[in-house]
């Protein structure tokens, strides 16, 4: 199993390594990390920090995709999380207090969990296709976020809140620490409990899983709650980074980046086996790509082109049909037997 993991992660790793090499050639100091005021700085740290929200959501998305689902609403949930946090803080008498920040962020994540419950209800209980069910919240969610912020960009001043996205602990950006913590928790939850196996079995063969007594409905519901939870944290993080809630632009297209990260990481959109490490690499790849393109003198907006190429390549690599078409087919001569009377 270990050699298999290595095998499935080979291409994503190679792609990431290539990107890093390109960066080092373009900027020889790319790998250097310096310490300033007891904080770590450097391109790699930036990539990790800026990639943290995408990674968070991609982790949840990995589990959703493993059950053959998809969640398009995470971008909207990000906006709602930011809106709730900042609106609550801005509206409270002691905007800067620690306890207020904790309440605000918990409230935001709590609201997101509710939204996840909603998505999960539509999908697991009512049996609506995931893509349609989450489209509802994708459309309405940003409107809700604007409703909360009253259409304003709400800026707040709270030290603890600011720390989540922009601060440092033990020399490391808090965002990275949070993302790594969620990664670790997810890994433990899925691989140290039976959750991962049950998710995979539901994704691979739902009917066989049902007959084996797996509560597919509960599992499906859980993963949508989880991805919303992740999106909530990511939303708080993104808002914290600028100390502001921008309901229009926070987390715009992050659902697509997250899906991309999962696919690049080798988890098939058809469900089944998933790799959290692959998703980590995928998320890092996307962030590195975004960093690389301006570095080598291409307008950063063309980022999209590269993403398009990567998606298509990854999908073609995963598609049995495409692989069959690429590999040379040889017709083995069949043994001829005497025909019966």
């Amino acid at each position: 199993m270990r050699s298999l993991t290595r095998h499935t992660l080979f291409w994503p790793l190679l792609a990431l390594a290539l990107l890093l090499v390109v960066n080092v050639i373009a900027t020889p100091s790319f790998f250097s990390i310096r310490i300033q005021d007891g904080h770590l700085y450097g391109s790699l740290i930036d990539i990790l920090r800026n990639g943290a929200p995408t990674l968070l959501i991609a982790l949840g998305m990995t589990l959703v995709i493993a059950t053959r689902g998809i969640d398009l609403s995470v971008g909207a949930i990000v906006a709602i999380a930011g809106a709730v946090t900042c609106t609550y803080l801005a509206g409270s008498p002691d905007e800067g207090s620690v306890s207020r920040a904790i309440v605000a962020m918990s409230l935001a994540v709590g609201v997101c969990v509710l939204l996840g419950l909603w998505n999960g209800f539509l999908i697991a209980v009512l049996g609506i296709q995931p893509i349609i069910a989450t489209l509802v919240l994708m459309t309405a969610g940003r409107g809700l976020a604007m409703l909360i912020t009253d259409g304003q960009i709400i800026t707040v001043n709270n030290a603890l809140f600011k720390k989540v996205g922009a601060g440092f602990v033990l020399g490391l950006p808090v965002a990275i620490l949070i993302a790594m913590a969620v990664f670790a928790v997810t890994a433990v939850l899925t691989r140290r409990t039976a959750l991962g196996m049950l998710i995979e079995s539901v994704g691979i063969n739902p009917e066989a899983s049902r007959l084996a007594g797996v509560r597919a409905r509960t599992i499906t519901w859980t993963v949508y709650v989880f991805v919303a939870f992740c999106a909530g944290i990511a939303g708080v993080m993104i808002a914290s980074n600028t100390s502001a809630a921008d309901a229009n632009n926070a987390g715009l297209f992050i659902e697509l980046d997250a899906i991309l990260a999962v696919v690049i990481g080798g988890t098939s959109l058809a469900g089944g086996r998933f790799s959290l490490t692959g998703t980590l690499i995928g998320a890092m790849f996307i962030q590195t790509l975004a960093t690389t393109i301006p570095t080598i003198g291409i307008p950063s907006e063309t980022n999209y082109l590269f993403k398009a190429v990567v998606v298509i390549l990854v999908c073609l690599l995963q598609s049995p049909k495409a692989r069959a078409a690429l590999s040379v087919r040889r017709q083995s001569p069949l043994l001829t037997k005497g025909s019966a009377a």
Partner: protein
Amino acid sequence: MTQMSAAPAQATRTAEPVVEMSGVSVSFPGVKALQSVGLTLRPGEVHALMGENGAGKSTLIKALTGVYSIDEGTIIVGGEPRTFSGPAESQAAGISTVYQEINLCTNLTVAENMLLGREPRSFGRIDTREMNRRAGSVLARLGVDIEPRSLLGSHPIAIQQLVAIARAVDIDAELLILDEPTSSLDADEVVKLFEVMRTLRDEGVAIVFVSHFLDQVFEISDRMTVLRNGRLVGEYVTADTTQLQLVQAMIGRELETLEKIERQAEQNTVRATGTPLMEVLDLGRKGSVEAVDLQVFEGEVIGVAGLLGSGRTELARLLFGADAADHGDIQLRARRTKLRTPRQAIDQKIAFSSENRRSEGVIGDLSIADNMVLALQASRGWLRPLPAKTKERLVTQYIDALDIRPTDPHALMRNLSGGNQQKVLLARWLITEPELLILDEPTRGIDIGAKAQIQQLVADLAQQGVSVVFISAELEEVLRLSDRLVVMRDRRKIDERSNDDVSVADVLEIIAGEVRDDA
């Protein structure tokens, strides 16, 4: 191998066969699905194609219609050797197929379904009026009174089936293939279908009829071709053949290569006494099984015999809650219980191994170990993972006990042979320590060694007090293992007897319906 019977009276007027297949072989990776099979179809005849699951009936049909390409053999259509590259080509040559799962679009109208792809057109646009008129006239010819403009989905399955046939008829088919057209019809509807079939036959159409209902086959067909395990058993004239002969031809007697397993059941003193572990009364579900009564005692092996489509699988699914029964009572250990989901059954220590290993058992991309512990893990819930040590112990124990190859617990399930997959699935259930084990065709499609091992296992389990419901198409196997025998036919339980000196011939007679009264 082919044994041609004397020419039937009816077919003498027609000399040239519509289709003549001979020496046809088809293989899939690792499987020889058809070996040198022949089929001759004459105009104005209904020809039944018979055989158990996996006998190769549908492969033969698909080889004829060009869905599969053949490795060897010839197909002569209308006097010329042909190879079709797909259904569209064979359709053009006058061969129409109506599949069991009706391949029409319920979101379109009846007329559209009948004429899709051949719509009458005028000035480049579809002439809807003409289309409806034409559809109406074909339906009228078949005596089907429905509105051509109505949505297909608004009609019951039986009518959809007739629309599918009407579509085939409109193509001016010389050969009409009906693949299990009656499996979802009730008696009246079957009568109607047969009327249509006779009308077409009398117009000179050759009809292939695939069905598991023997009475129907004897009622409608002129000839029969029987397949078994991808080989041709023979062609028979229906009028000269008895149901018993047919059943024998279909099921066959496997060569007794298996070592004789001592029937341990005879030492079972508890059987059929005391409170039954499970007792069902009047259990049934519309369209799958009619009211069945059954008692299962501790340590007892109940063998269920019956042909495919007899309701044997459907009964097993009801006993496990895989399908919810719509009437009847289930008592477990003298307590009334509802079994509406597999989960409820598993909690009651019931286990069920499905006949559809691939689609309802195997989780292909998971390892042997994960597949084995799946049911136990599912009932523990995800928060209480099986300790790694326990898991390893159980897995190695069962890999060892059931002689599973490869022995590596991390090997992916999809890479295993059918027999080993089956053993892993048995292990999945044995690990849950069931009190009632329902096995639906556990030995189908696996090699003889694994088969013997599984049979031995069943005998051992019963010895240990586990109750087993054992379903198999192979009567020798059923008789060898069971204490009591239940025979199913036409979705009903038609016979139940204790397995004392019951011979294969006896069972064949019961299935064929030639013995109606018994002790």
